[in-house]
């Protein structure tokens, strides 16, 4: 069931196929399209913010709308753009890199996606129903608990639903990587991307429950009259900050680690060298993941935790610089002595090193607890986290998309357009965010709707806005490239970069429905490279040709998620009118009914028979 076949069927059939698919490769497409769409929405919000801050005392948008913009920009970019785009790459690549035919729980994979999508849609519906959330993406109580209207309710319900999806996805990848590796693929032979997804999934498993708990408390405070964060009734507002950051800090590593892994693969491939210091890289990844849980309170140095707590969290935070530094040097020395081929994917990766190094360094500066009394909640912080999130995550996503696009869609993204998109984005990025460090220290707090004439902030803000437009141009060229490539570019072979080292490059682009005709035998790190060096054409199979067992498609993940979506509206509006409880019961009924169906109805999957496989092999699959 390749895409070529799918295109010949009707549109309805294609849509039905995507609604019911449990194939990790198609779920990757779903994540990519919806994550990309939210990325554009979040980008538009960013442009509106920058236009508002273009000059002093500007009144392009109102103060209330501005707060909605910043809240939705942050929330959208983190939860609805970066996370799903990372999940797109994870889905497209991880099963292939470990020699598996799908993830461990294909049904859950689909459920995770639909929960995320409905959560994201719910959040954005708030724009049309009387106002988006406006208490910042951090949603601090009591500003959030007392925020009028239903905006914050949408934040709570939307993130709760999409967060459940992410948690499910994380567990799924954890189990997949533990259980589904091909024979010979020991832990210390896993590609760095798979390793980092493994660590990231562990972080998701431990970090997201903190958010879930926080959101439940917030939900009960706002919708059912509890007072967890209400100081007037004996609650405590600071508890939200702790819960949020116990989730929120690991979240930034959840975002960056998979891309660290992707960069490792890309540097290695396009330098034609094995990764320098592989074990150190694995160790550093695990250590960053571990330390990532020890440092959440560095977001709260000005909350008044006292000098002892502040010092402990400061030193712990600084410690993270060590494994990160190890990674930077290992990447540099992977390229050292190699044959660097400057593809678009490599260009984004090369640009990542200085950008992320700056972001990491300002991170260490912020870790100095006392100095954070000046940096905290100013544009210095805004500059810092955009250097790591755009310079790390966004650059990484662009690099990964260029690198794995042929594996996902069978065509290499046009290299010329790819490089053309890179330059305005790269220049615009530094124009936008470098100056913000200085703006912060010159006295521009974060989340300011206007700054005033005579504060010396006008020039810097104008430069920043100009930079944002350059970034927009780069993004548009990238989109043009996607369209151009799908229309004009030619189909490519399984190993379009010629120096592919890992298992995904040993199978056709895009891979057949079942990925591997025969599960490959892994004989070392960079398994395909090992075979190439031995003069072989492909992988040695680890099993004889035989029937392949595959999971069945199902609409149930979609209906389960749709139910939570409906119930979400019910929860939000039952505060105004109990009639909305009908939506709660209808929605939960749909969700639980679908779950019951799933539990009671046997779904044993289907087999792809040996004869079909032999047909496919004749057509060239498996070589």
């Amino acid at each position, binding site marked *: 069931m390749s895409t070529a076949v799918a295109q010949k069927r009707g549109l309805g059939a294609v849509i039905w196929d995507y609604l019911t698919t449990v194939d990790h490769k198609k779920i990757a497409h779903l994540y990519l399209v919806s994550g990309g769409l939210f990325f554009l929405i979040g980008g538009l919000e960013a442009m509106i913010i920058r236009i508002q801050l273009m000059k002093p005392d500007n009144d392009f948008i109102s103060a209330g709308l501005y707060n909605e913009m910043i809240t939705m920009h942050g929330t959208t970019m983190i939860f609805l753009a970066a996370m799903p785009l990372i999940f797109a790459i994870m889905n497209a690549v991880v099963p292939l890199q470990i020699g598996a035919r799908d993830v461990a729980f294909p049904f859950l994979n689909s459920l995770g996606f639909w929960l995320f999508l409905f959560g994201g849609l719910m959040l954005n519906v708030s724009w049309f129903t009387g106002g988006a959330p406006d208490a910042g993406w951090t949603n601090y109580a009591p500003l959030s608990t007392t925020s009028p209207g239903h905006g914050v309710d949408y934040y709570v319900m939307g993130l709760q639903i999409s967060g459940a999806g992410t948690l499910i996805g994380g567990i799924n990848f954890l189990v997949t990587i533990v259980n589904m590796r091909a024979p010979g693929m020991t832990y210390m032979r896993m590609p760095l991307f798979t390793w980092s997804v493994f660590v990231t999934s562990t972080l998701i498993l431990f970090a997201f429950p903190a958010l879930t708990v926080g959101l439940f408390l917030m939900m009960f405070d706002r919708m059912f009259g509890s007072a967890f964060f209400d100081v007037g009734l004996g609650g405590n507002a600071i508890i939200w900050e702790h819960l949020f950051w116990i989730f929120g800090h690991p979240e930034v590593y959840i975002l960056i680690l998979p891309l660290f892994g992707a960069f490792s693969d890309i540097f290695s491939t396009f330098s034609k060298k094995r990764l320098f210091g592989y074990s150190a890289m694995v160790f550093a990844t695990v250590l960053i993941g571990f330390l990532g849980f020890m440092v959440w309170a560095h977001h709260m140095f*000005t909350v008044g935790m006292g000098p002892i707590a502040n010092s402990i969290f400061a030193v712990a935070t600084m410690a993270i610089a060590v494994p990160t530094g190890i990674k930077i040097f290992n990447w540099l020395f992977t390229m050292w002595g190699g044959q660097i081929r400057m593809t678009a994917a490599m260009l984004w990766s090369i640009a990542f090193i200085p950008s992320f190094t700056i972001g990491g360094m300002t991170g260490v500066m912020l870790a100095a607890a006392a100095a954070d009394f000046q940096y905290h909640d100013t544009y210095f912080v805004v500059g810092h986290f955009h250097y790591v999130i755009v310079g790390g995550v966004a650059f990484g996503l662009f690099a990964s998309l260029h690198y794995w696009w042929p594996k996902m869609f069978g065509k290499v993204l046009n290299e010329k357009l790819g490089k053309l998109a890179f330059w305005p984005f790269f220049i615009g990025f530094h124009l936008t965010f470098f100056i913000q460090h200085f703006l912060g220290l010159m006295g521009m707090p974060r989340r300011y709707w206007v700054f005033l004439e005579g504060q010396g902030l006008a020039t810097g803000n104008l430069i920043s806005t100009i930079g944002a437009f350059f970034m927009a141009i780069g993004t548009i060229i990238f989109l043009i490239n996607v369209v151009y490539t799908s229309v004009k570019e030619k189909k490519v072979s399984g190993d379009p970069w010629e120096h592919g080292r890992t298992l995904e490059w040993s199978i056709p682009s895009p891979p057949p429905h079942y990925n591997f005709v025969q599960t490959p035998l892994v004989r070392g790190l960079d398994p395909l490279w090992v075979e190439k060096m031995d003069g072989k054409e492909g992988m040695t199979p680890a099993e004889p040709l035989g029937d392949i067992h595959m999971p069945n498609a199902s609409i149930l993940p979609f209906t389960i998620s749709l139910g939570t979506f409906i119930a979400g509206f019910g929860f939000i509006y039952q505060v105004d009118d109990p009639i909305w409880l009908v939506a709660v019961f209808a929605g939960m009924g749909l969700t639980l009914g679908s779950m019951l169906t799933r539990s009671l109805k046997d779904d044993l999957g289907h087999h792809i028979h040996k004869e079909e496989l032999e047909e496919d092999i004749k057509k060239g699959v498996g070589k």
Partner: protein
Amino acid sequence: MRGWMGKFRSLFLFGALTMLLTGCGIENISALKPKGYGSELLFDLMLISIAIMIFVFVIVMAIYAFVLLRYREKKGQEHIVPKQTEGNKALEVIWTVIPIILLLVLAIPTVQATFDLADQSTQGDEGVLTVDVTGNQYWWQFDYADQEISTSQEIYIPTNERVYLNMKASDVIHSFWVPAISGKMDTIPGENMNTMYLEAYEEGVYEGFCAELCGPSHSLMYFKVIAVSPDEFDQWVEDMQNIDPEATPETTTAQEGQELFNNNCMSCHAIGGASAGVGPNLGNFANREKIAGILQPSKDNLVDWIVHPDEVKPGNQMPAELVSEEDAAKIADYLLELDHSDVGNDLEMQSVEE
């Protein structure tokens, strides 16, 4: 009591960095032009960290540039297979140990400064001033409990003395930030009271900001720190203590304004010693640098503010069109006569034309 880093300033790198950074921003606003104990200490800490970071960055970039220039694939070399290096123990130890040392160099002054700024050892001593700070949507209240005076929007402090601040919020979380004098500290509703101290080296009017998102008018919640000599400060305290809320203003419009004010505004606001809580204490209104923290002090602006507060500061608590424009003008006349102290009148907020 200058920061202990002072002596390192003579080093070239620090000198150059200091020159570079102090070029940024405007006097009495920018954290890069420190004029108080806290801001200077933190500026020194920033310099140490920036110097270390530049050192690291230069090394990384040197290797980076070399690698990119030297190891590009050239035409005709497509089939060369480079040596597949696994790693290098010595190198890996070096780039693990050196960063640890550099971080220790930064960690020690960090911990020192963190404890230094949290020091409360002299609070409550004879002659040491403590001011209670309350953050409200969207204004600041300053209560001098021992002196039994209250102000809002402008906090007066004596120079070269530690002034402790006990900080709270009445509604949502705010953050009190005076970059030129000290760092910031959150003000939190409920039982979490925070304490920090200010110490300004020079007389002047310093810009203060709310640094924690607190609603639509978060970006309009400015305040001023007015540092005056200790003698002048004592004078100011005396002037403030002598405010008589009942005193009859000079002009007739102002007298009418007083009556209107007492009838319409006193349920929230206060004049003189009392701290009303719901709205700012307007005792020294005519001495303020700004109306509502942002508007230039003119009668027109004041009338505009009284009649349409929501257009100036969206989301604030003061009801719109409580009084007619005519009445507002009378109230404005009254308020602009509340000029009880000329301490600090010679000081001006720095600003530049852009």
